[in-house]
């Protein structure tokens, strides 16, 4: 057998295996049951419009709150990381190490239950949500933003200073705007992670009006004893996240061209 013939044989065998597996699965699988459990149109139809008007809306609201808070704190931490003042640098470093190293769920528990127990505070649930998710994402965003600021050529700061601008003015007007352009794609990735992490918030005991997507799906799963709600909720997540990851790709390609 020549090498070429052998290659063709292997290729044919691989196709055959694929077809065989598909055939076996489609014959063995209990299609009516799968359809009834995972793609139950009756149950899926019941979920609208609440899955959008309440659950998806809350998911997006929590994401927005945590992202805004995390972005602000992350920028502050990034500037502290770059500060010439030692204690600021150390604080930012330690903060980032801690919150990147801890499971997000632990932070959410600490904020949502630790703070009320320790200090007797009873804040609005939105505050716990913002802090619980935002404190963690700030740590990640700080590192991203720092990299962006450091990615701006040194000559930009020098040119701004040579025109008489103070360090902070030069940062605000010249360096940070350019740094942000660099970090928009990684920050969008951060946003996608945050959208998915809102699914952890059910541990805070969200109610019928404050529940997000996963909690809504899980509640219906229990009520109807049918997994279709999880599939619907999953599709809603994808409807939000896939366009965003696609957008990241577009932005990255555009950034590359701008260079």
């Amino acid at each position, binding site marked *: 057998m020549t090498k070429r013939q052998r290659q063709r044989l292997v290729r044919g065998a691989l196709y055959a295996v694929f077809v065989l597996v598909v055939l076996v699965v489609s014959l063995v699988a209990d299609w009516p049951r799968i359809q009834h459990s995972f793609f139950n149109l009756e149950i899926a139809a019941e979920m609208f419009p609440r899955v959008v008007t309440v659950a998806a809306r809350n998911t997006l609201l929590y994401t927005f709150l945590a992202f805004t808070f995390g972005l602000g704190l992350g920028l502050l931490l990034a500037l502290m990381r770059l500060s010439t003042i030692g204690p600021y640098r150390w604080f930012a470093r330690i903060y980032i190490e801690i919150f990147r190293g801890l499971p997000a769920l632990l932070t959410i528990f600490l904020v949502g239950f630790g703070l009320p127990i320790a200090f007797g505070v009873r804040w609005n649930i939105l505050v716990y949500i913002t802090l619980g998710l935002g404190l963690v994402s700030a740590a990640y965003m700080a590192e991203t933003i720092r990299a962006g600021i450091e990615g701006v050529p040194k000559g930009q700061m020098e040119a701004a200073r040579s025109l*008489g*601008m103070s360090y902070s003015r030069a940062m605000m007007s010249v360096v940070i*705007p350019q740094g942000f352009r660099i970090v928009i794609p990684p920050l969008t990735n951060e946003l996608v992670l945050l959208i998915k992490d809102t699914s952890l918030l059910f541990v805070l005991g969200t109610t019928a009006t404050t529940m997000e997507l996963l909690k809504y799906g899980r509640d219906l799963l229990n009520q109807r004893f049918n997994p279709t709600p999880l599939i619907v909720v999953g599709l809603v997540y994808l409807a939000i996240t896939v366009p965003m990851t696609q957008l990241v790709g577009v932005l990255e390609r555009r950034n590359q061209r701008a260079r």
Partner: protein
Amino acid sequence: MTTASAPPATHAIEVRDLHKSFGDLEVLSGIDFTVGHGEVVCVIGPSGSGKSTLLRCVNRLEEPTSGQIFIEGEDITHPDADVDALRSRIGMVFQSFNLFPHLSVLRNLTLAQKRVKKRPKPEAIEVAKRNLDRVGLSDKIDAFPAHLSGGQQQRVAIARALSMDPDMMLFDEPTSALDPELVGEVLEVMRKLVDEGMTMMVVTHEMGFAREVADRVVFMDGGVVVEEGPPEQILADPQHERTRRFLQMVL
């Protein structure tokens, strides 16, 4: 040039026994250097001779290790010196242009006017337009730096520095990053500034330009001023062996 009988009370730039080290490496080893009001001084020398570092010390983009620098008689190495105010009086042009790529040409020119000089917007725009006209780029007012040629970018950078109404201009190898065919337009703008009587310190490899416009040429090597004098003397009849060797290589 002013006559010798009426020397200005102070120099525009006066450097006394300036030392600068980066770690263990001493880049400037005791520089004494002056630029008079309205004088054009070109600093030449091989790369690594410390000429750019000297220029960058003059507006304290580099911190001197020791020594004193006076700008119009004011000691800028003093701890209480207001460096930002000082820099707004000294225009600087970089080898790599350093225009702000996220801002239009107009906003490149008005940003520091508004933020540092606190000029109202209409006045800042008017000053910007005047200076763009000086460098011959009025039609590029709304363009972004990325859409300009290197020569145009450097001319905009000069206009940006001029928009702060500086008392003097520092040029750090302003044509070294340019394609040869774009050098001329930048030198032409600089020549115009010389004619207008601007005080200028120019670090350059353009010997023709130095010969033509400089009042004085300073040759540096190994972190010291080797010799200085009128261009015709330094460039045509150098006294030191090191100067001769350098000029043989570049001319």
